[in-house]
């Protein structure tokens, strides 16, 4: 075989090999599911019965009729009482839809008696790569009252994953902001360089999310007008979670990428959360993943594949539930 023919054969073979390898990487990135661990349930030993507050929420009708509530009851009850969509002895949820920045924003205000009702769940009840399901499906499986998509941990190779008090991934991702939810319900935004995942659990961390960035800390906005997730465009569907006060939270989802709803920049989202009185807020996975499910019904307009209204499959959800 002469040199030229040898070169042609070698070039063709090596290019074919490169294309096949690229195909495998794409399959490995997007399709091949690998379950690394079955979800280990909740580490409820973090919660003592004494830490649970006694909240006696009234039904929406009762709330509307009540004009002589005691100061304590007034503090415990939702501000927009007419929007209460669910309440029991431990959980109260009020839904409000806003129109800001040419964007539809869905806000679920949540009051809990204990942080143990602020839970997370994995798709197919398993931790792994490319193990995904729609937010509404995961919410249905764990009988969630309210659910939003989580941080889509499966899309990244690193970043702490601590769920319901159990460590699933103990290697951080550099300077990524981590949202830590303590067993007492308080929020903190930290950095993986500061402590290990096990140290966080030992310190009483109930949940940890690695997406970010942190939007609001101590009531102040922590992002600027140019801050963005990766190389994403300025306006997107967004998902965020924030804490207003002790065991009082907001779950926020905005529509975007459509003519009806432009979407929010991170700064706009942070400013909106600040206007709600949020003290600490954190950005979760957005774009096509942004979904809010209330009692089995998707209430926003998820836009997977651009402006097509379709729910995207995700790795995990954050939800309010009792089971």
């Amino acid at each position: 075989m002469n040199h030229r023919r040898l070169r042609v054969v070698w070039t063709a073979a090596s290019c074919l090999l490169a294309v096949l390898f690229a195909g495998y990487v794409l399959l490995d990135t997007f399709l091949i599911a690998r379950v690394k661990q079955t979800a280990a349930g909740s580490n409820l030993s973090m919660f003592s019965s004494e830490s649970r507050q006694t909240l006696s929420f009234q039904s929406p009708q009762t709330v509307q009729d009540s004009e002589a509530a005691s100061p304590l009851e007034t503090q415990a009850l939702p501000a927009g009482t007419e929007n209460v969509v669910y309440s029991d002895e431990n959980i109260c949820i009020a839904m409000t839809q806003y129109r800001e920045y040419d964007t539809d924003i869905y806000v679920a205000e949540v009051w809990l008696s204990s942080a143990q009702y602020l839970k997370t769940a994995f798709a197919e009840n398993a931790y792994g790569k490319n193990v995904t399901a729609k937010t509404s499906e995961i919410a249905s499986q764990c009988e969630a009252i309210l659910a939003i998509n989580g941080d889509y941990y499966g899309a990244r190779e690193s970043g702490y994953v601590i769920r319901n008090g159990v460590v699933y991934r103990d290697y951080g991702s550099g300077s990524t902001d981590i949202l830590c939810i303590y067993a007492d319900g308080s929020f903190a935004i930290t950095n993986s360089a500061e402590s290990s995942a096990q140290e966080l659990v030992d310190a009483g961390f109930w949940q940890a999310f690695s997406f970010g960035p942190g939007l609001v800390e101590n009531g102040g906005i922590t992002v600027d007008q140019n801050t963005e997730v990766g190389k994403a465009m300025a306006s997107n569907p967004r998902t965020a979670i924030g804490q207003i006060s002790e065991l009082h939270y907001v779950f926020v989802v905005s529509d975007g990428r459509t003519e009806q709803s432009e979407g929010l920049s991170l700064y706009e989202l942070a400013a909106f959360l600040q206007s709600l009185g949020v003290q600490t807020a954190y950005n979760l996975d957005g774009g096509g993943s942004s979904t809010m499910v209330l009692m089995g019904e998707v209430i926003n307009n998820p836009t997977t594949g651009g402006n097509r209204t379709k729910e995207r499959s995700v790795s995990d959800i954050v939800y309010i539930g009792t089971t």
Partner: protein
Amino acid sequence: MYTSERLNRQRLLHSHGLRLLFAAAFTALFGAIYERFSFGVWSFWMVYAFLPFLLGGIWLLVLPKRKALPGELFLGLLEPGLVMLTLGSILAGVVEIYGTENRLLSVLPIAGGVLILASAITRVTAARRKRLPKNVIRTTSNIYTHLDYSSKVASANAILSLLGPTEENADLQPEEVQTVVPDAV
């Protein structure tokens, strides 16, 4: 190198250079279309994926004007290297635009980089060979290494027999030159 062989090689490099420029244009178009449908999420890897083909194409178009022309080995290393770099770049762009990660992403750029480096080494080697041509090396090696000592002695004796005795070699007769191997050898 014969003129006809040189012309053939120049044509080969030229045609491959044009092919790479065409591939660069196609890759740039692909990147632009992909970005167009990425809903504003962009990636350097996708935008500049055409650069390896572009630079490789320009290199191949410039090379035929040089004295030393690289051979088949150079092309055989360069082109797969460029393909791997470009594929790796597109792959990194797709993954970054989707907002995910994969540890295997570094394999293709590293493999491509190694092949391109190897092709550059063959190019440098070819250029050096051109500066010290093959016939010079052969002549030098013949003079200094391929002459054995006995032939030197025979030459010396032949010279002596022709010139006859002189003051310096008065005591020497032909066929009597000592065959002593010098220490330095």
